[in-house]
């Protein structure tokens, strides 16, 4: 018993001596808990609105009225755009869903009762199918309410039309009139039994940007897979770097006629090549096994190089602070997990509360996913992902500079 106890005490001591270890054990779970709590609405800063872009091809009073009603919905933020702009916005991942109001939406509204397809349809970003499904339900309800509101009027319109056609044949006319009377009577029932799904459905399809192939599920999952691969490679590299600092091989290299600049560049290059290999292998597998397609091969290569540089810079930054292998690995994983979480790599950005989804704008992981998607299947132009490209580059450069400076200082102190 005494021996067991001694071993346990020794282990506890070992853990608590390593400050970074304590950080991972205690502080990190707190950070995660706070973030996840925030994600589940722990900090209510008002519910987040979903942005919906509406294309009004009808341009009638009816469609205007419908849009006006949509605007009243507290969980929607409505933008009106023309079809080309709207498709670009959705295709580039800016906005998850577009709602198209077809021509003659207003005119055909009365007859909607005989058709299950109202004159509206949706197109969505395939990587945000969950948002589109949520919106599909919401829009269906909106449409149903809108349709109900005008139901008495619709009925009288139809009635008039019938009367015009069949008014001269009394038998038919009587039957039809009877039917309409009954319908009028069951109107309250319609209102009461709010089951729009029984009556209508809104067709929805993956966005068809003219120059964008429609992606399969693996097209969407593979950029994220690449990111995780990169994070793994980065952690391995950070560990090996710290290892070299501690076992004397770095000192030996520094004693050779080489400059610190050369050593750091060599490390950076090694890390970049590793990351590029990860990207290549992932791409190879997903292309040949899961038949994904890369639409902009050259840009994809350019972005891959950029990402390998940027993440290597971050690796250098992290490993310049880490003192032990454990802290190097822990630090890299947790920093990147956090960035991944905030960058939409773990929780869909859409479901984050407002303040949190703001933060995702500043996550290198988010930027990386964005530019990979841009060249892999979104077929976005360079200018459309310029901010992400720029920030990724700047982050890489800053991390590289600060990491090198810290390293230089710690080595020569």
């Amino acid at each position: 018993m005494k021996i067991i106890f001694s071993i346990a005490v020794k282990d506890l001591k070992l853990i608590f001596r390593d400050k970074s270890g304590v950080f991972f054990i205690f502080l990190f779970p707190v950070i995660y808990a706070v973030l996840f709590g925030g994600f589940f609405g722990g900090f209510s800063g008002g519910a987040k609105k979903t942005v919906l872009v509406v294309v009004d091809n009808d341009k009638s009073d009816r469609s205007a009225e419908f849009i006006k009603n949509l605007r009243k919905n507290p969980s929607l933020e409505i933008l009106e755009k023309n079809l080309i702009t709207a498709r670009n916005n959705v295709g580039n991942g800016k906005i998850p869903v577009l709602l198209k109001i077809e021509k003659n939406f207003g005119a055909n509204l009365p007859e909607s009762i005989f058709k299950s397809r109202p004159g509206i349809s949706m197109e969505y970003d395939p990587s945000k199918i969950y948002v589109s499904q949520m919106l599909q339900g919401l829009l269906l309800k909106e449409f149903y309410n809108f349709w109900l509101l005008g139901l008495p009027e619709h009925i009288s319109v139809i009635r008039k039309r019938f009367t015009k056609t069949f008014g001269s044949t009394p038998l038919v006319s009587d039957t039809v009139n009877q039917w309409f009377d009954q319908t009028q009577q069951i109107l309250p029932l319609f209102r009461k039994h709010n089951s729009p799904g029984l009556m209508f459905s809104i067709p929805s399809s993956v966005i068809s940007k003219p120059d964008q192939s429609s992606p399969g599920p693996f097209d969407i999952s593979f950029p994220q897979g690449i990111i995780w691969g990169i994070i793994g490679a980065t952690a391995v590299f950070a560990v090996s770097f710290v290892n070299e600092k501690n076992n004397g091989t770095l000192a030996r290299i520094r004693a050779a006629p080489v400059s610190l600049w050369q050593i750091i560049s060599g490390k950076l290059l090694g890390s970049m090549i590793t990351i590029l290999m990860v990207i290549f292998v992932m791409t190879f597998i997903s292309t040949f096994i899961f038949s994904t397609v890369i639409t902009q091969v050259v840009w994809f290569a350019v972005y891959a190089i950029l990402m390998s540089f940027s993440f290597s810079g971050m690796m250098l930054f992290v490993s310049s602070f880490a003192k032990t292998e454990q802290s190097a690995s822990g630090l890299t994983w947790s920093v990147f997990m956090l960035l991944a979480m905030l960058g939409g790599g773990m929780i869909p950005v859409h479901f984050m509360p407002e303040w949190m989804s703001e933060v995702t704008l500043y996550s290198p992981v988010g930027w990386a996913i964005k530019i990979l998607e841009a060249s892999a299947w979104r077929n976005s132009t360079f200018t459309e992902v310029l901010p992400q490209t720029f920030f990724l580059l700047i982050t890489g450069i800053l991390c590289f500079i600060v990491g090198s400076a810290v390293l230089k200082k710690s080595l020569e102190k």
Partner: protein
Amino acid sequence: MLQLKNITKVFSSFTAVNNITLHVNTGEIFGFLGPNGAGKSTSINMICGLLKPTEGEILICGGKDPSNSETRKAIGYVPQSLAIYNELTALENLRFFGRINGVPQKLLKSRISKALSMTGLERKKNQPAGKFSGGMKRRLNIGCALLHDPELIILDEPTVGVDPQSRNRIFENIQELNKEGKTIIYTTHYMEEAQKLCKNVVIIDAGEIIALDSVSNLIHNRLDKTVIEAVIGNQTISIKTDDPVKELEKLQKNNKFKSFQIREKTLEDVFLDLTGKKIRD
């Protein structure tokens, strides 16, 4: 070959090396001695340009600064720790350290085979260093510093944990290199090694020089005492004394010793006399 002028190194508030001035002549084997924590490795790290002296100046090969990377071409540094890559084979380790030390591709092969034969690792050259025994690792650790044929070879405790066979091999290597005209700085705790190899030595303690002289001067002039080795019970003790007869009488009176001998003084006697018996921390 090497000159240290008033070198001081302060780590935050702790002075590890305090105002050391010495010079090492071209072509000699110079011993850098001192108890644990004396500041030997710190000094050597400064000589190799790994640490910046807080104060003072280091000049190598006729007045060049080791923090300049060109100057370091002249230095072969064997660190105290085993600074080799366990995942790489002996050959790959040697090739890597040869390359970063600027060995031209043409010469690399012949230099590597020379280093392999010197360290006796030819047969194991394709094995990963991680699978080597302690002694083999030590030898590889030395070999990695020799590929660029440096003029100044600095060895920081190269024989720790090495059996007598390997140790002798290492001594032979060092003497061989010295015969080729290399200057050698040798750090060790083993005084018999220093006595065997070095002409001049410096002994430092707590960062300060306490002796800087030739080995023979230290042994014959510094310690003006006779060494008696007496066997008492199961123990052998050595006594340094000015008056051996009186000391022996004293011992006999207590009827303690079984046998005794008066032996030649060694560098170790001088070292212990100068640095005392207190354990360093």
